[in-house]
């Protein structure tokens, strides 16, 4: 039956082996990195694909294998892996994008001196991400969750000679840490309150789904919110989104792999995995929905005013992740995961396309590009497909998944429906602005000598473009196959003519407006900047969130830190120095005993023996 599922534990081992081999080789074999990294991820992808094909039938049973890891007293910690349809889908997404990024990097990173190190990190990341996906309990998930964070840190700061890259890596690490701390507390609370301290997803599901009342609603809400905090950090939701745009300092293939398709989606995956906890708490669900909805519109508006091609895509990612969160909060698990699925392909496509452009023109400022469409045909066509998918134009994949989210919103929360539509309009607008500025018009300074990228880079673009077209057909308003497969229960088709028409309309309107302004030029670009300069400034600076953090959190913390460091230097440091001096003087004393004379050794032994005997036994014989 599910023969391949039983072998799922092998999947992370391929990239792990690749990582170990690459580390062992060191920097000496520059060509080896490409082959070993690609083969490792290709093998993982092949096995993942087999698992999914194996599970396509109607009633695939979840496969779980766990063993006792540590037994302390009565408590047993079990770890293992679990293959469900959700994890199987994630496996395919992660391994496929990872493989394509490996291939793509062969061209993109070709001249980098540390390319072997780069491939080693990518393999380590792929291993960690797959481990996260396969974990059958929250504890091992948390370990891998931290590990992907470390890999993200290493890769964002890969070009560590650039100060901005160093700062971005640090920021990514610290900001996500806030979320991780929340997640850890959530896990600890869960550990405390769960019957038998179980942390595996199966038990969590049965405890929360069964309405056993084992855990009160208040605690459930608290746990759910803390887990959500972890997801907010990892998935760049407001207000912890600030690290994601800065993380664009990393190499572009990394932005595609980690900061678009896989790691940032881990937050969404985490909520989907612990969905039963969230469904038990209406307050938590609402929080998820509103935070997601707000992030979706907030980031989309910021993306309108950015000039760096990667930052636009980064805000777009934040915005799309917001859609996924909103869907989860609106009780549409299928909608959230479906959007995760399609988004992984078209956003990876857009990032890789952006990488291809940057590779050609050596700038990231879209105002310095232009007219690249005729020079880079493959990049232009595939980018257009990605942009249309993101803008929600049928029949591209993004349309179907966004449509599903908007339908869910219309049914339960009209306010969020409006927010979603507005976000969709902004999305179409910023994507058409990006597209027309980069590919149409007259070539500007940087675009003069541009030419198409090598085949290693265009091949992944074509594969992803095909997927960006077809991936949406697994679930359409007339066909609920994906949802049924995911949940294991038949789901009705959910078509709503209003939503389809409205979302196509705002998408087309956005593109048309973008064309008018940036393509045809019939509306002046500066018309808003002249009338409302503060608005443009506000959007350009992303609503001054970074500055706000600097003023409200970073500066006071630094002041406290300075005060504490004085305390540390003189009080704590003093105590430590005294303790250290005391320890080393004891050490000096007993080292003096080591004078090489056996007589001294024996004498010391006798004296020590007598002291112990007199002190302990002597008291028994005292009157």
């Amino acid at each position, binding site marked *: 039956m599910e023969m391949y599922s039983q072998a799922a534990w092998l999947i992370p081992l391929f990239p792990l082996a690749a990582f170990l081999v690459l580390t062992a080789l060191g920097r000496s074999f520059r060509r080896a990195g490409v082959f070993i990294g690609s083969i490792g991820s290709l093998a993982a992808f092949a096995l993942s694909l087999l698992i999914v094909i194996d599970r396509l039938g109607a009633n695939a049973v979840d496969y779980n294998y766990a063993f006792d890891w540590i037994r302390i007293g009565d408590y047993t910690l079990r770890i293992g892996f679990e293959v469900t349809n959700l994890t199987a889908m994630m496996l395919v997404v992660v391994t496929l994008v990872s493989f394509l990024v490996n291939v793509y990097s062969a061209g993109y990173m070709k001249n980098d001196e540390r390319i072997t190190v780069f491939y080693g990190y990518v393999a380590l990341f792929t291993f960690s991400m797959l481990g996260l996906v396969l974990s059958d309990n929250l504890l091992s998930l948390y370990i891998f969750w931290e590990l992907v964070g470390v890999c993200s840190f290493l890769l964002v700061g890969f070009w560590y000679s650039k100060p901005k890259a160093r700062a971005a890596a640090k920021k990514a690490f610290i900001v996500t840490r806030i979320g991780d701390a929340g997640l850890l507390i959530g896990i600890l609370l869960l550990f405390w309150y769960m019957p038998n301290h179980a942390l595996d997803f199966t038990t969590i599901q049965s405890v929360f789904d069964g309405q056993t009342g084992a855990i009160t609603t208040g605690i459930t809400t608290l746990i759910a919110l803390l887990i959500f905090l972890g997801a907010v950090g990892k998935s760049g939701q407001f207000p912890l989104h600030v690290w994601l745009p800065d993380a664009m300092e990393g190499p572009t293939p990394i932005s595609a792999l980690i900061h678009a398709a896989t790691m940032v989606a881990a937050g969404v995956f985490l909520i989907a995995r612990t969905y039963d906890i969230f469904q038990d708490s209406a307050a938590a669900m609402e929080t998820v929905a509103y935070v997601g909805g707000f992030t979706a519109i907030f980031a989309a508006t910021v993306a309108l005013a950015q000039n760096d091609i990667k930052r636009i895509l980064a805000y777009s990612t934040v915005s799309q992740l917001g859609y996924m969160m909103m869907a989860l909060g609106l009780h549409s698990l299928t909608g959230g995961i479906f959007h995760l699925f399609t988004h992984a392909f078209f956003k990876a496509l857009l990032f890789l396309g952006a990488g291809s452009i940057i590779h050609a023109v050596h700038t990231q400022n879209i105002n310095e590009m232009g007219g690249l469409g005729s020079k880079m045909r493959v990049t232009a066509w595939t980018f257009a497909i990605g942009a249309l998918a993101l803008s929600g134009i049928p029949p591209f994949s993004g349309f179907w998944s966004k449509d599903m989210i908007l339908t869910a919103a219309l049914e339960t929360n009209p306010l969020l429906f409006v927010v979603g539509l507005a976000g969709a309009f902004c999305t179409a607008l910023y994507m058409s602005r990006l597209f027309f500025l980069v590919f149409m018009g007259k070539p500007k300074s940087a675009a003069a000598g541009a030419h198409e990228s090598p085949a290693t880079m265009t091949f992944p673009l074509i594969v992803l473009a095909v997927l960006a077209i077809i991936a949406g057909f697994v679930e359409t308003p007339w066909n609920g196959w994906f949802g049924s497969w995911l949940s294991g229960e038949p789901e009705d088709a959910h078509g709503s003519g209003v939503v389809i028409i409205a979302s196509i309309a705002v998408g087309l309107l956005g593109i048309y407006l973008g064309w008018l302004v940036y393509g045809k030029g019939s509306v002046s670009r500066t018309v808003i900047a002249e009338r409302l300069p503060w608005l443009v400034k506000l959007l350009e600076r992303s609503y001054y969130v970074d500055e706000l953090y600097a003023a409200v959190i970073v500066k006071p913390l630094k002041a406290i830190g300075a005060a504490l460091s004085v305390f540390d230097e003189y009080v704590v440091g003093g105590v430590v120095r005294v303790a250290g001096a005391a320890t080393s003087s004891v050490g*000096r004393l007993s080292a003096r005993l080591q004078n090489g004379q056996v007589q*001294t050794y024996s004498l010391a*032994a006798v004296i020590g023996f007598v002291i112990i005997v007199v002190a302990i036994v002597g008291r028994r014989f005292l009157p």
Partner: protein
Amino acid sequence: MYEGVSFIPLTWTDMLYLAPEFTLAAVFLLLIVLDLLLPKSVSRLSIGWLTFAGLLVTLGLVVWRMLDMNKAGAAADAVHLLSNSYRIDDFASLLKIVFLTGTAFIVLLALGSVRDDDAITDRAEYFYLLLPAVIGAMMMSSSGNLVTLYIGLELLSLTSYVLVGMRRKSSLSAEAAFKYLVTGGISSALVLFGMSYLYGVTGSVDLAVIGKALPGALVDFQALVYVGFLFMLAGFGIKIATAPFHAWAPDVYQGAPSPVSAFLAVISKGAALAVIFRIMFNTVLFAVGGEDANVSNDIFFIVLVLAAAAMLVGTTTALRQKNVKRLLALSGVANAGYMLVPIGLSITVVHSSNFSEFIYYLIAYLLMTIGAFAVLSVVSRSAGHEELKGFSGMYYRAPWTAAAMVVFVLSLAGLPVSGGFFGKLFILLGAANAKIYWLAAIIVVSSVISYYFYFGLVRQMFMRSGSDDSDIRVPAATGAVIWLCAAATIALGLFPGPLMEWIDAVFSIRSDLMFQ
């Protein structure tokens, strides 16, 4: 001889139970003759490989016997031979497995390093003398009375005196052998003195009889009982190098060849710890009720004090150490302290997993110590000395060996993911369970102090560039020891469960440790 017990001689079936010991003895005698007969031109490494083979065969016999005895489950009765003077039970079998495995590693290590050591003249003896030493250790773990125990102890000690002085052309080695002989003599004298008092007040050398007679003896001879136990503890204290009886260890380890130092650190120490375990739990533990409880508590308490002293003295003295062998000797002092903890905790209603804590740590200690000595032997050969600075820049010269050393250092420092982490954790939890919080605090404090010098090693390897860039050559046999130890250390750190569960499954305090 003893009251009411007639002496039962050895039968042929009994001989089968002694097959491991006999095998080793036979191999030993064979190798002596072989060494005499073989012409000088034949390499003595072949003797080393034969020693190794003999150890493996014996290991197989012990494992087979143990599995055979445990077929019926944990409550399998122990076999006692010669009127309870020799016992085959799971306590003894587990320890024998540890000793034989450790000695096999050490022979491999010696095989890898002997070629480069010109100071060793008698290469055959260097290998086959390990056999009587390990027979001694096996006798100690199997002994049911004080005389067998003492003979085992002497067999182990006498051969190790010779082994320490094996580097005949080195004055350091000769000095070490002399010091070890003198200190060892004192140790034997103290042990014998203590034993004679125990025999005097109870009228027996049989541990079971002593345990039964002790409550009665305490009525009249309380002070003499103290004398008996305390002198024995002091004598064994020298063997396990616990403070304040540890001062010989750095000098002797430094002078001895690395494999012999490893033997002293692991097998010699382990055997002495095992007999303390056996004696304490068969005699002192039964002295309960009223006045007797005082004596019992005092003696267990003294073991804990010795443990605490060893941990603190070992770690603080090591702080200023620049010679890696002396450093490992002092780390061995601290580790002797950790292993004394489960012994000194006694058994209470809430805490009775002493033996599994002890043996788990002993196994982890064996792996990390032999592994560290193996790396040291490779590094010191390349650097020409055993100072800390020989490790400098090792990561750039031999990255994999450096990585293995990091595993051993992590384990020695008691950090995850390593066998040493869980070993220390189990001991710490044991102390906390028994509500001896001051000792738990000392375990933690001494561990923290030890980070300083363990990470001094890591710092040398990774953050200092070495004075020379020559590659470090790792002989195949030494490499095998390093990697087996590193892999097992990590395995114990990742999956402590199976081993702990297996020990708990086969071992029962009542039938495997106690005689009453």
